[in-house]
């Protein structure tokens, strides 16, 4: 006879094995490892959040301490490889297979682990791609999640850091998996429910609050004049002519410079209200001066940022806040917003090749992707027109205007030389060499050439929409590649032709006065300035406090 409820029966067996450790749903922190040993089976797919910011750090430690004879060969399916424990799972042999998105802080360690052969890598995803696979072929058997508070029924409150949890928990719970949550505290009544208790099987109150990685704080003091120059070119050469109102910014210093020039330089250009009004964006502290001067209409966020809670709570017209006053962030929603409802993605990268493929992978660091391949791609399912989208589409195509789709603007900012004077423009991406070495089927390219529309360097802007063939594209890229070998290999005549057609724009073509390129142009020069702008509401993390 066909069994139709095998998963349900398996779930019941596991719950029985775990329940003797629980009082209702509550398990003592001292029993965390025993609980995980009871409910996880060898070969399980496990999601151990593992988000961009918040970390189920206590349960990560508990899982690392598990008996390898009981739990082994796990397939880890989580967006962030952020904590050392995430890698220890592989070092110890508890886990052997990995599908993930982002590993910024552990990029070096991930590269070493892949080289050692201790990890069988499935793929490096963009966030919503991995979330999508949770519902198709990577559904977790066990999800280990993290919340600020729980009640005894297992309802969870995440505060501003909701992030990946709802999607992870739903995929797991509704496919008869098991959900365990670590929480900072168990309370009688929650300020708000982010995950309903009927999806949560066990809760563990931890001795310490969970760790949140401050990822989006950029100290204005570290912004260089070259970055200011590039930001000014971007404002005059891209934001102004296309009229970019709906956008996403990457997390680097280049975009922080743009944010800090809005109340000063862009204000002088008369662009207030014309650009940068609606963001899909993490709560960047460097956007505070623009918010305070009335530039920004609204911001939806992927996650929170350490120190920004009180500021956001005091700006309900700007951020999405729950009835409890704290921001809701759901990475799935915001990534979808960034994909379909913004007209521009702009971010920094580390390497660009002659076609315009861009990658943050270097020989010894695999930082993963996070949201960049998603935001930095042109969604072919989009059907609503906006001026920037239509203008970009028409620059790229000569088809009938009413039949040619628009195009999302995908801008890569890069200084021609990176750390240690390594050239940012290369004939062959390190990502490709790495893929050959590790026998990966796909090189980890962050933004593919056919999605990139503009490349901004200190030498100028290459508008790839206006390039008609591969050769023009290559010359446009060489034409902004400065004194790198790629830049010096340009065909001068062709580059000047492209410049005449405005496919290359130099600072002087844009009327950027070099004397305006001053640190004093930044609306804030330090983290302390940001705090002052916020009226004391922004509470910077300790590592950014140098006063």
């Amino acid at each position, binding site marked *: 006879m066909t069994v139709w409820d095998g998963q349900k029966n398996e779930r019941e067996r596991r719950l029985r094995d775990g329940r003797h450790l629980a009082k209702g749903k509550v398990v003592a922190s001292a029993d965390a490892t025993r609980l995980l040993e009871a409910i996880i089976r060898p070969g399980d797919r496990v999601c151990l959040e593992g988000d961009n910011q918040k970390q189920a750090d206590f349960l990560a430690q508990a899982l690392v301490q598990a008996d390898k004879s009981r739990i082994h060969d796990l397939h880890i399916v989580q967006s962030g490889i952020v904590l050392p424990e995430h890698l220890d799972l592989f070092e110890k042999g508890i886990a052997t297979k990995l599908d993930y998105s982002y590993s910024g802080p552990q990029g070096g360690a991930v590269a070493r682990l892949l080289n050692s052969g201790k990890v069988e890598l499935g793929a490096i995803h963009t966030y919503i791609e991995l979330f999508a696979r949770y519902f198709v072929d990577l559904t977790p058997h066990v999800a280990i999640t993290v919340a600020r508070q729980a009640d005894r029924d297992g309802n969870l409150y995440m505060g501003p850091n909701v992030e990946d949890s709802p999607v992870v928990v739903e995929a797991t719970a509704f496919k008869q998996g098991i959900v365990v949550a670590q929480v900072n505290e168990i309370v009688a009544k929650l300020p708000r429910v982010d995950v309903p208790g009927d999806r949560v099987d066990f809760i563990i109150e931890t001795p310490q609050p969970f760790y949140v990685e401050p990822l989006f704080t950029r100290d204005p003091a570290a912004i260089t004049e*070259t970055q200011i*120059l590039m930001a000014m070119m971007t404002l005059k050469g891209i934001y102004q002519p296309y009229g970019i109102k709906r956008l996403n910014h990457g997390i680097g210093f280049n975009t922080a410079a743009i944010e800090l020039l809005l109340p000063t330089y862009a204000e002088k250009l008369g662009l207030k209200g014309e650009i940068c009004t609606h963001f899909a964006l993490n709560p960047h502290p460097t956007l505070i001066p623009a918010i305070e001067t009335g530039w920004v209409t609204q911001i939806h966020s992927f996650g929170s940022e350490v120190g920004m809670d009180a500021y956001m709570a005091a700006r309900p017209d700007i951020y999405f806040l729950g009835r409890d006053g704290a921001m809701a962030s759901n990475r799935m929603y915001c990534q979808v917003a960034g994909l379909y409802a913004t007209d521009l993605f702009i971010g920094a990268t580390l390497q660009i090749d002659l076609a315009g493929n861009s990658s943050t992978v270097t020989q010894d660091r695999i930082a993963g992707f996070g949201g960049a391949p998603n935001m930095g791609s042109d969604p072919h399912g989009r059907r609503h027109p906006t001026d920037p989208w239509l203008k970009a589409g028409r620059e790229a195509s000569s088809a009938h205007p009413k039949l040619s789709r628009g195009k999302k603007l995908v801008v890569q900012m890069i200084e021609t030389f990176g750390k240690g004077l390594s050239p940012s423009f290369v004939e062959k991406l390190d990502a490709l060499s790495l893929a050959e070495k590790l026998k990966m089927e796909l090189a980890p390219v962050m933004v593919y050439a056919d999605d990139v529309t503009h490349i901004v360097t200190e030498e100028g802007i290459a508008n790839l929409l206006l390039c008609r063939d591969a050769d023009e594209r290559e010359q446009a890229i060489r034409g902004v590649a*400065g*004194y790198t070998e790629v830049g010096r290999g340009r065909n001068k005549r062709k580059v000047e032709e492209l410049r005449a057609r405005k496919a290359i724009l130099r600072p002087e073509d844009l009327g950027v006065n*070099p*004397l305006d390129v001053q640190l004093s142009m930044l609306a804030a020069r330090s983290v302390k300035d940001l705090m002052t702008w916020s009226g004391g509401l922004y509470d910077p993390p300790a590592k950014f406090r140098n006063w």
Partner: protein
Amino acid sequence: MQTLKLRHRAVGPLKGKRNTGIVGVVASGNCEALFERTPSEKTCEVDIRTSVVGFDEVWKLVVADFVERASPGGIRVSINDGGATPDVVMLRLMQGAALMEGN
């Protein structure tokens, strides 16, 4: 410390009346550029004092591009380099030219 002396022909004299100007600072990764007018309206002299050796080729390219971009005839530039990258050098040169053109 080495000194690099570069001489270029410019299309014409740099606009403006200002006689001297200074931009930048001598600091790590930065440079200071002193601009002065000279009687020779079609030449641009650039003297570079730098402790970083092995980048003569890049200096020559940067200065040649600067002369093409700014047409700085009748100008002597003295650069005290603190290990500036080419982007910073070009920015200082363009700033100096803009300063001299100012008033």
